[in-house]
């Protein structure tokens, strides 16, 4: 059996296992939106760590991150740094409070929390639109990556379009049937698979080149310039702000905070997610560097796909696992995003239009939205227009997520935040980030150098200023609402009596 056929067989086996795994936890799940979209708020620490990490580590880990290391060398260390420093605290500063309010008021989506606190349909609508803009293109990028990988791996025998369609069919099917609990358990399996493949590859590369220090010394001989931090401090800090702070409020991660079974689970998972994510950057960094020695003929155009190329050249047997591992990385991101977008439309649109719908009806409608969004994603990923917009909008996901941060300060930390402040901040922040996607507008609006040249950081500062400024000159939310939120947070987290 050749290695291509072996890889396809492994993918089929992998999909079969995923289906079995996805169906089992879904069996006891109650037929309500909370049961389907949040797994009944019952995820323990192990599952929560794996589902957050696997949802966050996407196709990028296999078809992009290695190329960045290959091209930028030591600058890639930034990723491990911000993952460890910021992801670890995301659960403490944001996750614990979001979990508590979600439990107290029965929230399902990010829009629930913000719209309920500010008592505003406009806030709900803006958060839904923002959520779709954050998740939809990012999910489409995963499809695009898988389609390209399958087409490349099979030398065109399986076309991009067919690869995308098959991948979508698998992912939508098990997401549809299993809901959050099944998705979280498949994320455990998928996360374990791609971590094992990455670390096995790192072990082999280390043996070949004399350990991590040996890899560095070998690469320094051929490309010494890769060991300068030449991207600059502003770039480093901007990336830390974008993903380090934006991570905890990405809609699918936000809902994972809701899905935890206790505060202890949130705190414990939070720091372990930081450490796991940091650890997953190690193989990407060292293998990406080692490719300069092991694949000296590699060009910049090919560098994004260096991991499968390296595996097929030196370790074809382990390389067979790269395809299912890349599938796993992409599926574990897409399933979470599909569920998050569907829950948002079901809960924030359908349930508002049909307030009398039963829990079972709502869960059924939610499942239909999974199918609808999967089909839309496929059309988007295959069409020429979609393909040309996928990457630019997808790259803005982190910047758009940051727009949610200032309005969230109202219910979590700053009682003075107002409805008008939240609406204007959400509208102006999203508009700013989207406008800066146009190169000419970005050049006109932002300086050429420094921290403020990045739309994410500037957008966050702008949104914060608008939120604070407008809030200070408009009426705060009613005292009863402030007391219900901030009183609950103080009462539970600080142990003080409710006011």
């Amino acid at each position: 059996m050749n290695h291509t056929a072996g890889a396809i067989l492994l993918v089929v086996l992998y999909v079969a296992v995923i289906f079995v795994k996805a169906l089992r936890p879904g069996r006891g799940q109650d037929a309500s939106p909370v049961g389907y979209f949040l797994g009944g708020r019952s995820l323990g620490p192990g599952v929560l760590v794996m589902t957050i990490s696997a949802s966050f580590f996407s196709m990028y880990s296999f078809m992009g991150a290695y190329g960045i290391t290959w091209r930028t060398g030591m600058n890639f260390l930034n990723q491990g740094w911000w993952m460890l420093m910021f992801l670890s605290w995301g659960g403490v500063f944001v996750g614990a409070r979001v979990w508590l309010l979600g439990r107290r008021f029965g929230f399902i989506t990010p829009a629930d929390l913000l719209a309920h606190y500010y008592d505003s349909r406009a806030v709900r609508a803006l958060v839904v639109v923002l959520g779709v803009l954050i998740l939809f293109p990012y999910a489409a990028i995963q499809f695009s990556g898988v389609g390209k990988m399958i087409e490349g791996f099979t030398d065109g025998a399986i076309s991009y379009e067919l690869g995308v369609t098959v991948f979508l069919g698998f992912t939508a099917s098990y997401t549809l049937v299993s809901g959050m609990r099944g998705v979280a358990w498949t994320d455990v399996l998928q996360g374990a698979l791609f971590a094992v493949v990455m670390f096995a590859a790192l072990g082999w590369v280390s043996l070949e080149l004399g350990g991590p220090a040996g890899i560095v010394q070998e690469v320094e001989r051929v490309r010494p310039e890769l060991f300068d931090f030449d991207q600059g401090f502003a770039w480093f800090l901007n990336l830390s702000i974008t993903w380090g702070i934006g991570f905890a409020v990405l809609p699918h991660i936000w809902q994972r905070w809701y899905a935890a079974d206790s505060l202890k689970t949130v705190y414990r998972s939070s720091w372990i997610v930081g450490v796991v994510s940091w650890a997953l950057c190690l193989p990407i960094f060292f293998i990406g560097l080692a490719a300069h020695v092991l694949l000296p003929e590699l060009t910049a155009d090919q560098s994004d796909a260096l991991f499968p190329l390296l595996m097929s050249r030196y370790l074809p047997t382990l390389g067979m696992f790269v395809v299912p591992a890349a599938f796993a990385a992409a599926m574990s991101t897409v399933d979470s995003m599909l569920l998050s977008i569907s829950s948002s439309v079901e809960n924030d649109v359908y349930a508002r239009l049909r307030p009398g719908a039963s829990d079972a009806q709502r869960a059924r409608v939610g499942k239909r939205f999974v199918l609808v969004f999967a089909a839309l994603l496929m059309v988007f990923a295959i069409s020429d227009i979609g393909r040309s917009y996928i990457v630019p909008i997808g790259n803005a996901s982190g910047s758009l997520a940051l727009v949610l941060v200032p309005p969230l300060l109202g219910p979590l930390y700053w009682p003075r935040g107002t409805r008008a402040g939240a609406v204007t901040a959400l509208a102006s922040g999203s508009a700013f980030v989207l406008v800066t996607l146009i190169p000419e507008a970005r050049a006109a609006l932002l300086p050429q150098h420094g921290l403020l040249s990045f739309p994410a950081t500037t957008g966050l500062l702008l949104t914060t200023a608008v939120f604070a400024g407008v809030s200070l000159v408009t009426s705060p939310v009613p005292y009863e609402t402030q007391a219900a939120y901030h009183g609950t947070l103080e009462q539970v987290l600080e142990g003080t009596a409710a006011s």
Partner: protein
Amino acid sequence: MLVFLAATGSIVSGVLPLSGRWLGVPAPMAALYALEAVTIAVLALTYRFHWASRARAADRRVRELPRQETG
């Protein structure tokens, strides 16, 4: 959060311009990994001796809260 951001930013701005070699690798790389190792230890200890007990106590208080389904 802003204080935390400023603190980590200051550390990184001090580490990135380092020159020379530590333990056979470029100094900024060795320094970053050393900082990360220390951070992992601090996180583990902070959880073990601070957050875990806080969270247990908070979970007890959560059980006494009224629940309301607004979603």
